[in-house]
């Protein structure tokens, strides 16, 4: 959790080629300090879940291998287990990463105009990412 802001800075750097300080400044300027925590929700939930799935699948595969394979086949079976474990966890890992990255990128690149169509007819340009819904 404490490290998530650095991950957000990394994502912005990878998209626009800025420096670490430059990316951090532009996030805070455009979305406020909370912008550094964009995407933390899907990341924490789906990444933790994917970790559980990965280790559970890895242990289950290793147990099956120990019960069904010869002793000399076990080292190779570990790699296969790790592969199966990765495939199993990727089912939740990839959507989590995707949502996280799209939310992180929005803190710098999502720019929109709110047009006041009220009685005054005044046009208001706002650039924000927070007070927003579909």
């Amino acid at each position, binding site marked *: 959790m404490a490290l998530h802001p650095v991950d957000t800075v990394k994502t912005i750097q990878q998209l626009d080629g800025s420096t670490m300080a430059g990316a951090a400044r532009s996030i805070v300027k455009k979305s406020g300090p909370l912008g550094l925590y964009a995407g933390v929700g899907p990341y924490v939930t789906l990444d933790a879940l994917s970790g559980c799935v990965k280790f559970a699948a890895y242990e289950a595969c290793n147990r099956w291998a120990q019960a069904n394979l010869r002793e000399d086949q076990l080292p190779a079976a570990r790699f296969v287990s790790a592969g199966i474990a990765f495939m199993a966890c990727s089912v939740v890992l*990839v959507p989590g990463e995707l949502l996280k990255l799209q*939310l992180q990128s929005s803190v710098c690149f999502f720019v929109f105009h709110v047009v006041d169509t009220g009685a005054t007819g005044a046009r208001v340009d706002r650039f924000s*990412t927070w007070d927003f819904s579909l």
Partner: protein
Amino acid sequence: MQRGPGLTDFQPGISLCNPFPRRARLSSDAAYPGLQVHPSLRSAYAHIWKTRGVLGFYQGYKATVVRDVPYTMMELGLYDLVKSKCHNEVLSAALVGGFVGYVTNPLDIVKTRLMTSDIGSITRVVRDIWTKEGPQQFMCGALARASWLMPFTTMYLPAYDVTTRWLLDRQRASTSSAER
């Protein structure tokens, strides 16, 4: 007035009456075309679901595999190697986490770009970065990536070791008590 780099227009069809465009697109003079960004989890989820269905959530799957397989192999392989030399789990994990995070940044940047755009092809992303931005761009964000992966790995790898040892001890204890 603040402006995002190169963001000049919205998706066609979103009129000024709609103050909440679902998706912004970078124009052609910007970092790269077709950037997909979403302001909230709900809008990201709804957009992906409506436009591409379940498979939309697996955009960038191949890039994730291409990044994570070498990453995990290097991480676990180097951790065992360094640990056998310096006999300190925490120090080994810190060294390995920082190093592996740094050198796998080119794979990570490709995944980041694929997951935030509609480009959809690993080779095209690599070619675009190489020709339009130069090879040094592949290391952009590497320091930030290493500096969060280093503390993360420092906690996670020794914790994994401790848990494995605890489980093995428990297993040994239960088999020896069963023998008795």
